[in-house]
């Protein structure tokens, strides 16, 4: 496409000449950074070796990280539980968090045995199957997955990946706001500023310019998604470490049956956040061209985001609730690893396999449809 990069430069210039874009980006980046790192700056009073000691969150996490390294290779078995019962304070790190999550109820070490601990975990896993109304074949499938998980769990440090993954959920939410505010203007402003009369009658003003605008919007969305994710994730990874990429996900999410590692889930969440950015960008541009307005798409996207906070489709409506589960906000929250699957070609596709295809298909579809509206637009009513 002729003059593609030259036109892209000016489309980006239009975006970055708006103060609102800079203000939003700085504010949202600040929120991401603060949410992920404020605990490191706070001061805590902790009991260490029987004495109360004041330390910063950073110092505390550094200590936890050292303790975790010492606990690497510890089997969460009867011997470990006996040690924990005898002297709970002798066990540091995050291993007790793992034991607590396996119980999923009030933390009670004294009555625990290795068998009861893993039975409680399995009961929690099976409870989720019932919540999501899995059928018999699906339950058998997950039972087979469960059988491949090595028990007792061998503890490994999981570094900052768990927190980094959780923080990226926040950045995904904030990126939706950024996309809603910044992207609709790419098409909407041409109509509100009446420059469409000029651009549409130039020889590159239809197909080429449409391609340039789509590229600008999508690349802006992808880059800001990645930046917000990095701002959210890096503090945790720097302070709490990057060891544990290969640690089983069951150490941070015990009720998951998938054979995934903590690092893989971290990367999947990063990928989902970026893809959500693509989807939001494509939809924002489609709406702004369809409605010929930069403000209405903003309202629609933010309104939809608010709806996802309050609306939940009951699980007994399997298809509807599964579709609702594929909404970006429901994927980039803890919904990524739930037990919903889609049967396909004799196999089952997991959520993180279905979502990229679904979102990219929708993005392409609205982009193609948007071009039909764009090239057929007529300047009237002025």
């Amino acid at each position: 496409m002729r003059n593609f990069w030259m036109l892209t430069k000016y489309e980006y210039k239009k975006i970055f000449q708006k103060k609102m874009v800079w203000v939003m980006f700085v504010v949202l980046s600040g929120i991401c950074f603060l949410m992920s790192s404020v605990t490191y700056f706070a001061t805590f009073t902790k009991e260490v070796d029987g004495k109360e000691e004041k330390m910063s969150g950073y110092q505390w996490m550094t200590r936890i990280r050292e303790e975790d390294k010492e606990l690497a290779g510890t089997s969460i078995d009867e011997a470990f539980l006996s040690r924990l019962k005898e002297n709970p304070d002798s066990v540091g790190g995050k291993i007790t968090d793992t034991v607590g999550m396996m119980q999923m109820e009030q933390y009670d070490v004294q009555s625990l045995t290795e068998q009861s601990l893993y039975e409680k975990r399995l009961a929690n896993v099976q409870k989720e199957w019932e919540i999501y109304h899995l059928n018999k074949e699906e339950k058998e499938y997950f039972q087979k997955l469960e059988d491949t998980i090595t028990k007792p769990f061998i503890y490994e440090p999981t570094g900052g990946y768990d927190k980094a993954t959780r923080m990226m959920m926040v950045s995904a939410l904030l990126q939706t706001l950024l996309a809603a505010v910044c992207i609709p203007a790419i098409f909407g402003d041409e109509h509100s500023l009446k420059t469409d009369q000029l651009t549409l009658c130039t020889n590159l003003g239809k197909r080429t310019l449409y391609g340039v605008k789509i590229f600008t919007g999508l690349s802006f969305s992808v880059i800001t998604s990645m930046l917000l994710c990095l701002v959210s994730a890096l503090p945790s990874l720097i302070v709490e470490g990057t060891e544990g990429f290969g640690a089983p996900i069951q150490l941070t999410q015990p009720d998951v049956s998938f054979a995934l590692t903590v690092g893989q889930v971290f990367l999947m969440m990063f990928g989902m956040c970026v893809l959500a950015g693509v989807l939001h960008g494509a939809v924002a541009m489609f709406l702004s061209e369809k409605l010929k307005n930069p403000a209405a798409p903003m309202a629609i996207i933010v309104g939809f985001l608010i709806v996802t906070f309050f609306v939940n489709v009951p699980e007994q409506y399997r298809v509807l609730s599964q579709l609702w589960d594929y909404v970006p906000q429901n994927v980039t929250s803890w919904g990524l690893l739930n037990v919903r699957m889609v049967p396909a070609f004799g196999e089952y596709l997991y959520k993180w396999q279905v979502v990229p295809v679904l979102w990219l298909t929708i993005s392409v579809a609205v982009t193609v449809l948007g071009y039909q509206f764009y090239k057929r637009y007529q300047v009237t009513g002025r």
Partner: protein
Amino acid sequence: MELIIDRLKKQYGSKIAVDRISRKLTPGVYGLLGANGAGKTTLMRMLCGILKPTGGSVSLDGFDVSSEEYRKALGYLPQDFGYYPNFTGKDFLMYMAALKGLDKNSAKKRCRELLNLVGLESVAGKKVKTYSGGMKQRLGIAQALLNRPKLLILDEPTAGLDPKERVRFRDLIAELGERNIVILSTHIVLDIEHIADRILMMKDGQLIFDGTPYEVGGDLEHFYLEQFGEVE
């Protein structure tokens, strides 16, 4: 070079805005006169391809108005000219030059030429939102000329220009009309009285007069008012 307008029509519901106009235009300056609501802007938008006709067709040297080749040869200044407020004058022209297919070096050179031509070279680096109405209009004229158009359509181009600028503009249009088709709509009769090769008058979507200034026979303004029943 020939612009063929063949039974061009635009209808909105029961209202006919442009009523089956047919003309063959060759290089020259065509002054389009008419009252508000006569259909001038609607006609011009259809000639630019930004408004789809209800019927009829438009072609330039065999290229239909919807084609890229037609748009390559077109320069358009709309009546309510839109701009990007935070772009500088130079940014705006460079962007429009890129849209018109000029490569970077040609665009820079052409922008410099046109900024000099319209007298905006000293404010090229300032944001368009700081320009006066007349300066914005001159910028609009400059962008219409970027691609050396064979077909130049100007809707009220002298609005906001002071008398000196209007004279400069008329001279420029007269020169362009020697080799290209220039269609110029205006309420200011004086703007076209001395430069138009043909006068086209529109009323209620129809062309009620198509003739040379000679056929008008003297005072164009008087003739115009006569056609619209303002003078007996």
